[in-house]
């Protein structure tokens, strides 16, 4: 978490976060699982949606559904206006310079694939090197391996230390005249580590190397400012930040996006088509071929409205407290080993139990109403780094409370009882 200054902590600006009231906004949290109140601690996989996002989707399909950028009729004009208004909200949310720099995609995975295929295949050559970190999600490894195979480039990996932190000295050693791209995660989905992405970007830029940041796990927890980070690309998903599934964002610096070829061809991404030649549309439409996820985009706009109405000083204090409380409670259970002990963390508590596999933990926790992720978290190299086949991951959002962590702790004790 970002450090909260004393000033921000003062009673004048920060009243304690009213989590009970916030929970009222999320209808799914009211249900019971196996007769027990749901404790949803799988936010790293996907977050729950506030009623305002659900209502927005219903309203769109009930009163506005139509195609955008083409109809002269009223519904299409309304849908187009709302779609583009959501783009403006995203621009403001991450402080991009222009709406041209906001490309709507299916999610983080598609955003990274877009950059790997469009930028990578055009501007990377045989012998070039792409740097990623050892704590990437598969979606920030495989697209780069694919482009390496296509152009003959080589993937280099920044190691992480035993706490799950990027080793900056090793990164500096890896940077050389062959380095042509850097792609790292902002927050690790498996470990919760907040990476020093500003420093990573600055070092790459000293050599004129563009940087992509995977922000999927960062946007639900940190206020992201792409101009402050100074990254060239930033990718994130709507569904992990209280918006709908199937919608995500690629932010790209306009001057890079301008010189990149389209990722997919089709409708909406053209300005003129003949069988001899096609003229591509301007940014951002050049990268949005076909009818987009209109409802998803408008729903994502509603999620941003929801997030921006919260007091983020309060949210940060609350989430920091949840993570601290959970970390200390789990550390008291002897057979628990926490994986990922970086100084700066956000939202994730990964752990293993001696002699009990994560899947068995997950099944027993579910019986207590506790939803967690058990497995390799699409980050098999991280599991190999720590010598474990899988971990159990509790991941938090601002609507979680300490009572849910108490239930988690009780459920872990039941696991230990079952396994003797």
């Amino acid at each position, binding site marked *: 978490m970002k450090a909260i200054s004393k000033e921000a902590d003062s009673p004048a600006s920060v009243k304690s976060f009213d989590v009970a009231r916030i929970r009222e906004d999320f209808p799914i949290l009211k249900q019971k699982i*196996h007769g027990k109140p749901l404790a949803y601690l799988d936010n790293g996989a996907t977050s729950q949606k506030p009623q305002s996002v659900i209502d927005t989707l219903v309203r769109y399909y009930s009163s506005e559904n139509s195609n955008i950028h083409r109809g002269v009729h009223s519904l299409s004009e309304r849908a187009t206006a709302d779609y583009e208004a959501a783009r403006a909200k995203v621009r403001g949310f991450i402080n991009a310079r222009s709406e041209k720099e906001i490309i709507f995609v299916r999610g983080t995975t598609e955003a990274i694939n877009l950059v790997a295929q469009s930028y990578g295949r055009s501007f990377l050559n045989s012998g070039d090197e792409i740097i990623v970190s050892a704590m990437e999600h598969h979606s920030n490894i495989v697209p780069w391996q694919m482009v390496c195979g296509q152009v003959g480039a080589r993937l280099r990996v920044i190691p992480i230390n035993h706490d799950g932190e990027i080793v900056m000295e090793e990164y500096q050693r890896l940077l050389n005249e062959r380095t042509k791209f850097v792609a790292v995660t902002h927050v690790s989905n498996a470990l919760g580590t907040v990476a020093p992405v500003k420093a990573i970007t600055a070092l790459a830029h000293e050599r004129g190397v563009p940087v992509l940041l995977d922000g999927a796990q960062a946007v639900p927890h940190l206020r992201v400012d792409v101009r402050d980070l100074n990254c060239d690309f930033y990718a994130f998903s709507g569904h992990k930040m209280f918006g709908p599934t199937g919608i995500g964002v690629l932010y790209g610096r306009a001057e890079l996006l301008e010189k990149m070829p389209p990722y997919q061809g089709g409708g909406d991404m053209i300005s003129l088509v003949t069988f001899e030649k096609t003229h591509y549309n301007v940014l951002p439409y050049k990268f949005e071929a076909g009818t987009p996820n209109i409802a998803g985009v408008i729903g994502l706009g509603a999620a941003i409205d929801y997030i921006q109405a919260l007091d983020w000083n309060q949210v940060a204090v609350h989430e920091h407290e949840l993570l601290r409380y959970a970390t200390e409670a789990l550390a008291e259970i002897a057979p628990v080993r926490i994986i990922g002990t970086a100084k700066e963390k956000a939202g994730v508590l990964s752990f293993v139990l001696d002699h009990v596999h994560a*899947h*068995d933990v997950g*099944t*027993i926790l579910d*019986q207590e109403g506790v939803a967690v992720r058990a497995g*390799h978290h699409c980050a*098999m190299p991280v599991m190999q780094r720590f010598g474990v*086949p*899988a971990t159990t991951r509790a991941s938090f959002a601002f609507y979680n409370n300490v009572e849910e962590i108490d239930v988690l702790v009780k459920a872990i004790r039941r696991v230990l009882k079952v396994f003797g």
Partner: protein
Amino acid sequence: MADLDDLYQEVILDHNKSPRNFRAMAEANRRAEGYNPLCGDHVTVYLRLEDGLIKDISFQGSGCAISKASASLMTAELKGKSETHAHELFDNVRKMLTGETNGAQGAGKVGKLAILSGVSKFPARVKCASLAWHTVNAALAGDDRPATTE
């Protein structure tokens, strides 16, 4: 409601803690690897097959209690049995795990492996229990591509 005690029975916990035939086999003439790509469970099954008879069988790997116990119970059950019996058992166990057969009807056909019948109430865990079986099937078929539960 699915009952946890049906899943984690004493016998299963025991096989998880002290798996039988848990070793590599140098004299094996068939061998296959199995992965569950979803969770990363991994098992290697070794067979010494002579004249259609499973003279010896062992396994190694890492996985949850259900996958380990299922593999352990399987090796105990198949040792000394014919290849034909193994195929029949594979089919019956698969039906039991997926809930195609239930209760006494299914249990009668799988002997001691009926202890795994509770798995059918936990759909997310069926692949854990069936991994070793898919792998032994691949080993019997002489297929050296890794078996998966997909």
